[in-house]
């Protein structure tokens, strides 16, 4: 059965392997060039202890097309493998009636299914792994030059493998249930995107309890005044998490630790910052208005007074947890994949008769 499963997966496997090989060659050539550029522009600058912003920007402006292409490919590949490999895996057998041929050879249905899922699943994982390895390797000097790795979390390292396993399993399961290729593909797309979005929005930020940090308003990343959608003019400030951390939130808090309410915020401005001439509030439904740069002395006085009464509370996941998050996300997606595969197995061997 293994040989037959390979025969059925061979053409697809070889064509994707060919595409992957071309991609790897392109990545190797440009990637080596990029790391030379990094050494010449950024590394040498860092060694000289000069400010390197300009050198870094110059380096990052290279191969921007490839940067975009690789990131896009990395984000799309798992879903595409699920839609175009997972979903049709079984629907093609159902639509052409060949499942009746396959299931009446001297092989049990469960062995047929497990072998086909394992063969294709293995190939798909291998493809995702090699692709991620290639892209992650290609990006290594760019990432070193100034990427927060949390920003490219789903396009590097092992997380894409988890996504791919899940997309493939979801496709196979929906294919077994729906039995028609195009609807199964559509359902896989919808399901996969829904789960990915739900993960980003609701699951990933809560996988580990975040760290908190309080910082003075004088160290604020951004400080200013503005009004949004009809509200009164308020003080706006944002604190910075440590370098390369994943910042979840930043709030203005009072010295007793309470979040500053909009009313208290406005009241503070009226009381202590009357020297600043604020523009009228933005009209309701009219977007936001930011205050024009006020008189510098009044601005600093206001800020100093605010720093005495309030500070910033920042929640974040530190840079050092990156790999923990990668493993957690990958593991959870693999678990979801296992559930989908179990559902597929149950449906085909027990239900579909």
């Amino acid at each position, binding site marked *: 059965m293994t*040989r037959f499963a390979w*025969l059925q997966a061979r053409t697809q496997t070889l064509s994707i392997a060919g595409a992957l090989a071309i991609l790897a060659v392109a990545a190797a050539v440009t990637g080596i060039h990029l790391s030379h550029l990094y050494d010449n522009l950024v590394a040498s600058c860092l060694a000289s202890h000069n400010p390197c912003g300009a050198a870094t920007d110059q380096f990052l402006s290279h191969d921007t097309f490839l940067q975009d292409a690789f990131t896009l490919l990395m984000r799309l590949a798992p879903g595409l493998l699920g839609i175009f490999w997972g979903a049709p895996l079984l629907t093609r057998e159902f639509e052409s*009636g*060949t499942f*009746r*041929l396959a*299931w009446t050879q*001297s*092989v049990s249905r469960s062995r047929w299914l497990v072998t086909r899922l394992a063969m294709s699943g293995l190939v798909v994982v291998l493809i995702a792994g090699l692709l991620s390895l290639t892209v992650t390797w290609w990006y290594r000097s760019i990432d070193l030059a100034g990427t927060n790795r949390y920003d490219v979390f789903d396009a590097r390292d092992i997380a894409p493998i988890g996504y791919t396993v899940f997309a493939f399993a979801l496709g196979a399961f929906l294919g077994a249930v729906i039995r028609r290729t195009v609807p199964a593909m559509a359902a896989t797309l919808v399901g996969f995107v829904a789960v990915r979005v739900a993960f980003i929005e609701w699951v990933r930020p809560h996988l580990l309890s975040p760290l908190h940090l309080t910082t003075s308003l004088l160290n604020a990343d951004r400080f200013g005044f503005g009004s949004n959608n009809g509200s009164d003019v308020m003080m706006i400030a944002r604190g910075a998490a440590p370098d390369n951390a994943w910042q979840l939130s930043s709030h203005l808090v009072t010295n007793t630790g309470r979040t500053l309410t909009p009313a208290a915020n406005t009241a503070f401005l009226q009381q202590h910052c009357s020297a600043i001439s604020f523009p009228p509030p933005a009209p309701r439904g009219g977007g936001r208005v930011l205050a024009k740069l006020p008189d510098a002395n009044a601005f600093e006085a206001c800020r100093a007074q605010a720093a005495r009464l309030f500070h910033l509370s920042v929640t974040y996941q530190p840079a050092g947890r990156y790999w923990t998050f990668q493993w957690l996300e990958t593991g959870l997606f693999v678990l979801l994949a296992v559930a989908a595969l179990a559902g597929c197995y149950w449906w085909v061997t027990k239900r579909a*008769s």
Partner: protein
Amino acid sequence: MSAPALETVGLGKSYGRRWALTDCTLSIPAGHVVGLVGPNGAGKTTLLHLAVGLLRPSAGTIAVLGETPHDDPAALARIGFLAQDSPAYSRLTVAQHLQMGAWLNPSWDAGFANARVVDLGFDVRQRAGSLSGGQRAQLALTLAVAKRPELLLLDEPVASLDPLARREFLQTLMEVVAEHGVSVVMSSHLIADLERVCDYLVVLVSGQVALTGDVETLLASHHRLVGPRRDDLSMPANQSVIEASHVGKQSTLLVRTDDPILDPAWSVTPVNLDDVVLAYMRQARDGAAAAAPGLAVAR
């Protein structure tokens, strides 16, 4: 003799609320070429799928070659199945199909399969997707037979073939039966397809068995009686009327009896298989509600 090729007791299969097969009880001895006849939607395909384990019964039991067909490799090896429209992997070549058969069946007869493909004049490198309907049916039959099964189940194998391909297919089938002594159950909605090759008949109508029996016996025990009009059809106890029609002063009956017909009022003529099958089909269709006495099931 070994276990019956196919034996069912009270067999039923429902798809949701619709019953495709109800209370089907029959026993087909091994060593026959059995025609499974019935109009479209009579439950022929359902019965064959139950027999090969593609479906599981909703009611009753089914045994094939003495075993319950249930997704078991050893049981599957004893049955050759040819699904309706002879499915094949359109992107795989003829040779790859034979390779599949060899990989997936322990008792695969490569010699037979290869010789068969040569006889049929196939280019083994040709993809199944480019074969004609007749060629695909022949390929599917080759795959089913090269398993060396004890029982071949063929679901409407010739329905979509042109007359020439139909004849060639049945010719191949007869050769296989003669050479390997395999039992065959073949479904069709056309009696003409089966008449030439079958020696046993099962008639299914609306999910129920309307008639089963050895073809020769069926022909010998059915007679057409023509005589003066008689609306009162009280016949001797050993004769049952399957169908009666009255035109003018004349009545024509199709009667089943194992004994000679003695009433001199009737002129008795023999019947052909077509007449018998059609009579039972009409009777089952018309009298499905009121189970007529003539609807005795023969064994």
